[in-house]
């Protein structure tokens, strides 16, 4: 008998494999950017449902607000004005967790059970188990998780796992006035996307397509883009997202070897964590990673 309402596929930093006998539906959220009016109903519905309220900020000279994902804004609309061959387009993309099939955050997470991937595809953070190290941030190819200033724990979109567990759509998908956010089985979402792409091609968007990047094993949040050949037009949506090679390497073939070889370093790091607390560790390492990424 399962001890939870959603079957678990894998847990961070946990060697005991989860039971895999049951087969449940793989779900997905499809964001049809061509129908999105940037109204932010999804942002509001997300905050309201999840009982979080971000700061009342300032206007920064753009429509975006809040300006970036935060521990309390798990989704934000990103607006970009594009002008090509005299044709103006206002591309508006809902940003947030992509719920990767191969989640970099989970792979990077050192805290047992802080990140869970459910069998339906949802990647959820369990703040009770989070040590606030911030590795999930480094591990995420989409730069999504945020560490809370209040409790030093990582937060991001849960895909409304509490709603999905009782067979309801996520709050953002339910609210979306124009149906730009659809929710259902991943298979149905791909079919729906195909129809939308046909319609867009008929309207002259020859490069319309689905964004379901293979580099992270596909995602459970997908986009229909009018310009699927240029995802970066949409406020820097990664063209070929993939898990940092380092995380991948560690978790892949070299893992058993590395476990032995790096035991010393690991112990050192653990003591560092115990002595200095999670935030400093995370910041320190983040900085180093940033430096390296810039190289």
């Amino acid at each position: 008998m399962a001890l939870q309402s959603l079957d678990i596929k894998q847990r961070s930093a946990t060697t005991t494999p989860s039971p895999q006998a049951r087969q449940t539906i793989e779900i997905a959220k499809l964001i049809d950017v061509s129908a999105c009016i940037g109204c932010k109903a999804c942002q509001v519905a997300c905050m309201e449902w999840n009982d979080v309220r971000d700061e009342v900020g300032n206007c920064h000279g753009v429509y975006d607000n809040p300006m970036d994902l935060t521990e309390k804004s798990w989704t934000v609309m990103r607006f970009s004005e594009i002008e090509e061959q005299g044709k103006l387009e206002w591309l508006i993309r809902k940003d947030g967790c992509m719920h990767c099939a191969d989640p970099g955050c989970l792979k990077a997470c050192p805290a047992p059970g802080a990140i869970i991937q459910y069998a339906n595809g949802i990647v959820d953070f369990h703040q009770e188990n989070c040590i606030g190290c911030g590795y999930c941030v480094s591990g995420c190819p989409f730069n999504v998780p945020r560490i809370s200033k209040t409790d030093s724990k990582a937060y991001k979109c849960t895909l409304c796992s509490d709603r999905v567990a009782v067979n309801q759509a996520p709050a953002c998908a339910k609210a979306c006035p124009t149906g730009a956010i659809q929710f259902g089985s991943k298979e149905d979402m791909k079919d729906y996307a195909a129809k939308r792409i046909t319609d867009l091609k008929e309207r002259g968007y020859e490069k319309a397509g689905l964004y379901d990047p293979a580099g992270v094993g596909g995602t459970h949040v997908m986009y229909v883009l009018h310009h699927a050949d240029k995802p970066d037009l949409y406020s820097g949506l990664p063209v070929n997202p993939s898990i940092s090679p380092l995380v991948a390497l560690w978790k892949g073939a070299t893992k058993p070897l590395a476990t032995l070889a790096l035991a010393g370093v690991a112990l050192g790091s653990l003591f560092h964590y115990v002595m200095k607390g999670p935030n400093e560790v995370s910041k320190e390492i983040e900085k180093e990673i940033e430096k390296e990424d810039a190289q």
Partner: protein
Amino acid sequence: MQMNRRQFFKVCSAGLGGSSIAMMGFSPNAALAEVRTFKLARATETRNICPYCSVSCGVLIYSTGDKSKNSQSEIIHIEGDPDNPVNRGTLCPKGAGLRDMVQSANRLKWPEVREPGSKEWKRISWNEAIERIAAHMKADRDKNFQAQNKDGVTINRWPTIGALVSSAASNEAGYLTVKTLRALGVTQLDTQARI
């Protein structure tokens, strides 16, 4: 794949927990996982209509308690009514945020008066408020009411009062407002439909 020292360190750090913490005695059994409990399970559901624009979306209002005598209910969540043929469960950013309007820090809770020249509000009772307003109204109506115009046509008009009637009020409240204002002789009235 090339690795420098720092990357090597990063691999260790990023990966260490995955095995190391667990291997060193942090029991994976402790890592049970459960989603947040569905908070509406036993909440009371009421059907209403969003008060903002004229799409008039159907909303479901969820409140605590079951309306039993000793349970004070509090609205905890509002979402779209999927049965409503117009919004079909969807809501815009205004409608989806209705709970914060109902529970706005600026909701008025009791009658207040600001007296001539004063810099402050003063809390008063409903009785006092109604009596003082009615006294103003009657004095003004009795003084300025026009029964006839100069041509002798009966006009029965109270020319020194104006009123704005809310387009956010229900039809029933709006009708009653119009009925009472006209009975008092008010002709200067208007609503948001104008502007």
